[in-house]
């Protein structure tokens, strides 16, 4: 979009904009872009597959079938069948089914982790930004300290000894990922705190709790939450990395990480075991990231500036 085109578009939309909430404008702006639609429909398709196919398929993701082992994916190599569109692994388990079940866990962990990160980071940022003073200094120094430890070291340090169950993984990833949100939230709250409506509410006798949770939290958190879609993708990669290192959800439950780690041993004979789940993960992440990038640009446009 050129600079001229943007000003006229902004002018035309100005009347309309005043009556709509910021989050609706961000969502509408993103929906107007091609990349958001590609991402959205791509993600929807994969999500439906992950939800439906393992339920209706006659196969079991953990059932071994030694006679049908190391079958290649469709049209690639000798002995492929329609029964196993992505081939089978070293024990004859269906790769498509395993990838889809892995995707379920990956999404579950990714989304819950981001919700946890948003909750902790949002609250810390809200308190630090609104209270200011000593609360701010203490909370932000802790945030800085945690930001300077690479979260993956933290995660493997804890999961290396604690049993890597699903709640443990969500907790560890969430606890190590919140500092960025706390920082952003704090700076937004600090800017909002000085505005007239907050001062007005104070004069009218609203308590701090009311201002913080009824006024500032929904207003400041929504724009951040939109962009958190990008972090769902990032957390799914983290989950896969943990699984790859053997610290994720444990076998026989298939996850992207442990399938790829296993398949790595058969790379030369059966390349698809390690690579096919990755293609699946890549498509899911790419659609999430396209949606996230479109939302981010739309948010930047709504808040002024160039997208």
């Amino acid at each position, binding site marked *: 979009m050129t600079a001229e085109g943007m000003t006229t578009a902004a002018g035309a939309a100005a009347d309309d904009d005043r009556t709509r909430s910021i989050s609706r404008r961000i969502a509408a702006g993103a929906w107007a872009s091609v*990349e958001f639609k590609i991402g959205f429909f791509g993600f929807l398709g994969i999500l439906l597959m992950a939800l439906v196919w393992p339920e209706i398929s006659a196969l079991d993701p953990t059932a071994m079938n030694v006679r049908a082992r190391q079958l290649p994916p469709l049209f690639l190599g000798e002995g492929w069948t329609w029964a196993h569109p992505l081939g089978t692994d070293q024990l004859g388990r269906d790769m498509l089914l395993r990838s889809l079940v892995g995707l379920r866990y990956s999404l579950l962990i990714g989304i819950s982790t981001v919700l946890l990160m948003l909750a902790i980071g949002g609250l810390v940022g809200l308190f630090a930004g609104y209270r200011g003073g000593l609360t701010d200094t203490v909370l932000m*120094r802790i945030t800085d300290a945690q930001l300077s*430890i*690479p979260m993956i070291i933290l995660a*493997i340090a804890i999961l290396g*000894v604690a049993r890597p169950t699903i709640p443990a993984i969500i907790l560890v990833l969430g606890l190590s990922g919140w500092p960025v949100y706390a920082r952003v939230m704090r700076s937004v709250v600090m800017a909002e705190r000085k505005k007239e409506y907050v001062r007005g509410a104070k004069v009218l006798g609203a308590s701090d709790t009311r201002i913080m949770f009824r006024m500032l939290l929904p207003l400041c958190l929504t724009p951040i939450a939109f962009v958190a879609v990008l972090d769902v993708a990032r957390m799914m990669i983290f989950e896969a*990395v943990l699984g790859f290192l053997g610290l994720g959800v444990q076998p026989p439950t298939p996850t992207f990480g442990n399938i790829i780690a296993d398949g790595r041993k058969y790379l030369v004979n059966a390349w698809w075991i390690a*690579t096919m789940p990755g293609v699946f*993960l890549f498509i899911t992440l790419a659609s999430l990231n396209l949606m996230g*990038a479109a939302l981010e640009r739309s948010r930047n446009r709504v808040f002024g500036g160039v997208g």
Partner: protein
Amino acid sequence: MFVVTFLVRRLAQGAVIIFLVSFLIFTLLRVVPGDPVRLMAGGMAPEELIEQIAEDMGLRDPIPVQFARYMGGVIQGDLGQSFLRPASGAAVGGAQFDDATRAERAEVLTLIAETAPMTIQLALLSMVFALLIATPIGIAGGLYPGRWPDRLALYLGSLFVSLPNFWLGIVLVLLLSVKLGWLPAIGYGGFAWTILPALVLAIEIAPFILRTLTVSVAQVMQENYIAAATVRGLGRTRIVFAHALKNASVPLLNLLGVQFSLLLGGVLVIEFIFDYPGLGLLTINAVLQRDFPLIQGIAIVTSAAFVLINIIVDLAATAIDPRLDY
């Protein structure tokens, strides 16, 4: 004078951060289950011996006491000795509890000093690759917002950021090393072994550079002084490369400071896949073996690096743009 007060203030803040990081890691390691002495002495060692070793090493003292003792050493530049790694060779672990050689354990500082240059080499090379990939596309995207270079930057960024690094590593090994035989992949035997891991790492970093550059170039191009430069009769090339890029590079520098931990996380996984003998591989092994002093040492060194890089970034940013005030 400004620089001196700035340095003093930032170094003091940095010291606080490093202290907090060491305390966090130190406490965390002792709170989570898993006894390192059991790993050191081996599964066959009798219970009394375990207790005695733990007692001798001071591992049964209260955590604050242990921490004070440890920090006392750190201040004098002593990061302690590894629990498991012998000073002489690469052999790892303590299979036998009455092993006489256990006394000569490697110094943490030496272990870090040996591996850090490898990691720095990897990180620098990947940074070069990432800049080579991202700068042209990012600048083009920023110059034509909404048009095809911008779209290209958006799509490329979204695709790159969606590639899981360990999977990309495996695919590239399969293609470039196994099938084509162009590049060596596993272990380290010279500079050529750095190229493939650096490429994977570069693809992980590139999207962030791409996004930051696109946004910052687009923003700078809307400034008044850029419009004024055209009026002053300067050519387009000169405006973009001499005027716009200089200011647009400040957010890029800041990115380097903020995304330092991303870089480290990437290094960790990539060194593990490629069996590249750097700090990342050392860290993963240390964590999996519960080698407390080594993990603590690495945490302190990396957080110190984080602090220093951020100070250098801020100094460089003020040098580029004197309006900035820290």
